[in-house]
């Protein structure tokens, strides 16, 4: 890997890390809903732009690892969870790009973005699964049904809620992929087709 590629990975990873640290803190202070999904949308857009410019297997994952390392040393509270989330999201995006054989394009970017942002919904479940086992996931599901019954909502409402949240994240992820693709085309026009 050339030094220029490594520098691009480092600087784009720094941008994702800066977004996580500064914008994440601001969103937390302002109690913005869907904070994790929004931060992942921005971060994965940066990683996909980096993957298009570096054009090496593992570029998106490396950018995520750099961002996670920066988040780790700025660690506070329960942020270990967000460090793990960044690593897994970057790995999912990388796996999707690999599934498309690194043919950079809107379909690959949309799939990678959707997979990464969708993980934001599954991540708390993984935490509960690791810390408490599968029984606790069932317990949360039963509690959700009980709460919907107490609120006189239809029995299917927990399913509908989870499906709606998943669809929202898939939409955000596709948006991130499309935005990354359009940004890549604009930046390639500025820097040359191969980013030179």
């Amino acid at each position: 890997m050339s030094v220029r590629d490594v520098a691009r990975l480092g600087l784009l990873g720094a941008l994702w890390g800066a977004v996580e640290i500064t914008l994440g803190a601001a969103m937390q202070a302002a109690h913005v809903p869907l904070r994790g999904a929004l931060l992942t949308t921005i971060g994965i857009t940066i990683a996909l732009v980096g993957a298009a410019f570096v054009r090496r297997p593992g570029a998106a994952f490396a950018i995520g690892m750099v961002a996670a390392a920066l988040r780790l040393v700025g660690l506070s509270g329960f942020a270990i969870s967000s460090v793990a989330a960044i690593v897994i999201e970057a790995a999912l995006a990388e796996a999707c790009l690999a599934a498309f054989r690194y043919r950079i394009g809107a379909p690959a970017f949309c799939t990678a973005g959707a997979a990464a942002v969708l993980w934001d919904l599954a991540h708390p479940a993984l935490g509960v699964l690791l810390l408490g086992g599968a029984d606790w996931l069932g317990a949360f599901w039963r509690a959700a049904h009980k709460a919907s019954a107490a609120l006189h909502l239809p029995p299917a409402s927990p399913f509908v809620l989870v499906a709606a949240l998943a669809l929202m994240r898939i939409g955000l992820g596709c948006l991130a992929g499309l935005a990354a693709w359009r940004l890549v085309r604009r930046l390639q026009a500025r820097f040359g087709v191969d980013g030179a």
Partner: protein
Amino acid sequence: MAPDPSLRRPLPDVTARGALHLAAATLVAAPCAQGRALWALLAGVAVLAAWVEPHSFRNLLSRGFLTLALTMAAVTATGDGPGGSWAPVVARAAVLVLAFGVLGRRASPSALATLASRLRLGDFGLALGIAVNSLDSVRHTATGTWHALRLRGALRAGPVRCARLYAVTVLGCILARADTVALAAESRGYGLYDRPAQLRPATGADVQLAVAAWTLAVTALATRLVEA
């Protein structure tokens, strides 16, 4: 009256190595530990955290950890819990929060970059080093670009166009800066000599912390195996 700072106990000289051992050991042991072994693990990690980095206990007051604990308690109180208590789950989370709190306070970015270089991840070490050194300028670029667009009336162009202008400008600046960084590194002969980065040697406190952490982890795992 505040106590004299000079009377405070000096913290042991634990580097990133020792903190990484503690984090790795708890990451292995915490999800598997059960029963008395789990409580012994929590007590041991709490003692180690109090010895190495007492400020890591503040992490237990974070919103994420308290949300987890209160949600678990509420689910158990409604009778939907899976038979057992919610306390072991929260104890496992507390073990990880304390161990990674120590790591977050003891590991510097440059130490992580050097560690990556020593683990033959030279490119990742360089990327992380560039990221650490450029973090401030990246933040400056991001905020400066925003203010420049705002002052030039870009906000009137609509949110989508404004966001696109902002993203293209910031990413363009960062890619251009990457070229500058690469030129500077190559002009200084980066990569000509395969000289491994020098990591600060392990201290006595590092060794003590690593031995204690892995002893706790192995004991917890062995207890789990014996009970199974």
